[in-house]
């Protein structure tokens, strides 16, 4: 366990990183890596030095675990979905499905069987990942420590990889449907001739439109990450206080997250639908 406050915070914000260390790298304990190896990072510096060739095992593991919970629960209900009087669980699932369906119907005006399931997946999955924040910050890392893992950061949405991973997929879909619906020519036209329909302004238009396009995944990912990360930092700061006063700040902050967690999941879903709706709309 880290000793100073700064170390404690840094420790809690470090992911469990499994990555490639190049040959000749000097590890934190002074040993030299002889050949290129894949290993767990022992310190934040090591994790950073692994560069791109690394995985955050905690982010991936927990997000996949949460995804499996989502899929398992919903598939369970879907398999025994009855037309007649639904049970409590089916009611609950149907409520969520109906909610998402309503949003998609209101926002998305095209015809695409992918959009609604996509929105549902985003909403529930992100919600589940966010909701890991309610688990006290020391519990799971403590267990990880007991198992010999130096770092364990359980909330995947406090890892930019987690949020960008989703937003990049959304971005790919935006590009895909823009081209599919408008054609390469139509999409190019939209990028170059709007908002100013004049050949001389093509570079300016292009700059503006590409910027607007790139802003979409960036804003999606950064909004979710920023909110979750900041919330997590506050939880960690609260955890630094003496244990007998923690509840005074911890409880209100956790209650506040009853609002924040679904709201961020909801915003991510709605913006995804809005962006994809825009990708489907042909203005010309």
């Amino acid at each position, binding site marked *: 366990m880290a000793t100073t406050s700064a170390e404690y915070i840094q420790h809690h*914000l470090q*992911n469990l*990183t499994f*990555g490639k260390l190049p040959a000749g790298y000097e590890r934190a304990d002074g040993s030299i890596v002889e050949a290129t190896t894949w290993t767990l990072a022992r310190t934040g510096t090591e*994790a*950073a030095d*692994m*560069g*791109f*060739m*690394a*995985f*955050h095992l905690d*982010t*991936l593991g927990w*997000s*996949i675990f949460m*995804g499996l919970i*989502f*899929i398992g629960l*919903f*598939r369970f*209900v*879907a*398999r025994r*979905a*009855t*037309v*007649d009087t*639904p049970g409590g669980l*089916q009611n609950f*699932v*149907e409520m969520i*499905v*109906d909610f998402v*369906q309503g949003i998609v119907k209101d926002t998305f005006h095209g015809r695409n*069987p*992918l959009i*609604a*399931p*996509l929105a*549902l*997946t985003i909403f529930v*999955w992100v919600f589940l990942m966010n909701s890991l924040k309610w688990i006290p910050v020391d519990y799971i890392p403590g267990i990880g420590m007991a198992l010999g893992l130096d770092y364990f950061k359980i909330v*995947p949405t406090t*890892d*930019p*990889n*987690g949020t*960008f*991973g*989703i937003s*990049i*997929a959304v971005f790919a879909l935006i590009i895909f449907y823009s081209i599919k619906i408008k054609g390469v020519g139509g999409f190019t036209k939209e990028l170059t001739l709007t908002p100013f329909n004049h050949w001389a302004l093509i570079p300016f238009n292009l700059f503006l439109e590409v910027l607007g396009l790139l802003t979409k995944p960036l804003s999606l990912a950064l909004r979710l990450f920023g909110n979750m990360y900041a919330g997590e930092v506050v939880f960690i700061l609260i955890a630094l206080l003496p244990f007998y006063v923690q509840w005074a700040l911890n409880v209100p902050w956790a209650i506040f997250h009853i609002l924040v967690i679904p709201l961020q999941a909801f915003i991510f879903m709605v913006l995804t639908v809005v962006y994809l709706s825009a990708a489907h709309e042909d203005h010309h």
Partner: protein
Amino acid sequence: MNINLTLLGQTIAFAIFVWFTMKFVWPPITHAMQERQKKIAEGLDAAGRAQRDLGLAQEKAAQTLRETKEQSAQIIEQANKSATLIVEEAREQARSEGERLIAAAKAEIEQEMNRAKDQLRAQVAALAIKGAEQVLESEVDASAHSELVNKLASQL
């Protein structure tokens, strides 16, 4: 906070989850919901129809009841009428029968009386003749005096 392969892993996981949801989760649930919606709509429709039918049936029943009441009232009235008629007839019959009986009895009485009178008359005549015979101590020619005697007897 390093960007690394986690990004791709997350993207792949996300794609698989979306695909799974689209393939195996969304269709059955929405299908069930739609079916239920349809069923509820049909049920409500049927309920509305049934209510309308019920109204019609109630109206019909009320009408039938009304008609039946009228009919039964008519029948009762008729029955009452015919009953009075029968009673009246019977009374009339009884009266005439009584009168007839009285008349017959009276006639019989008359007859009997007449017969008795005749007998009495005959006996009186005979008595008178006998009396006269005794008074006269002579034989009276019955045939000669019968007219006189008969006149006397008829006066009795």
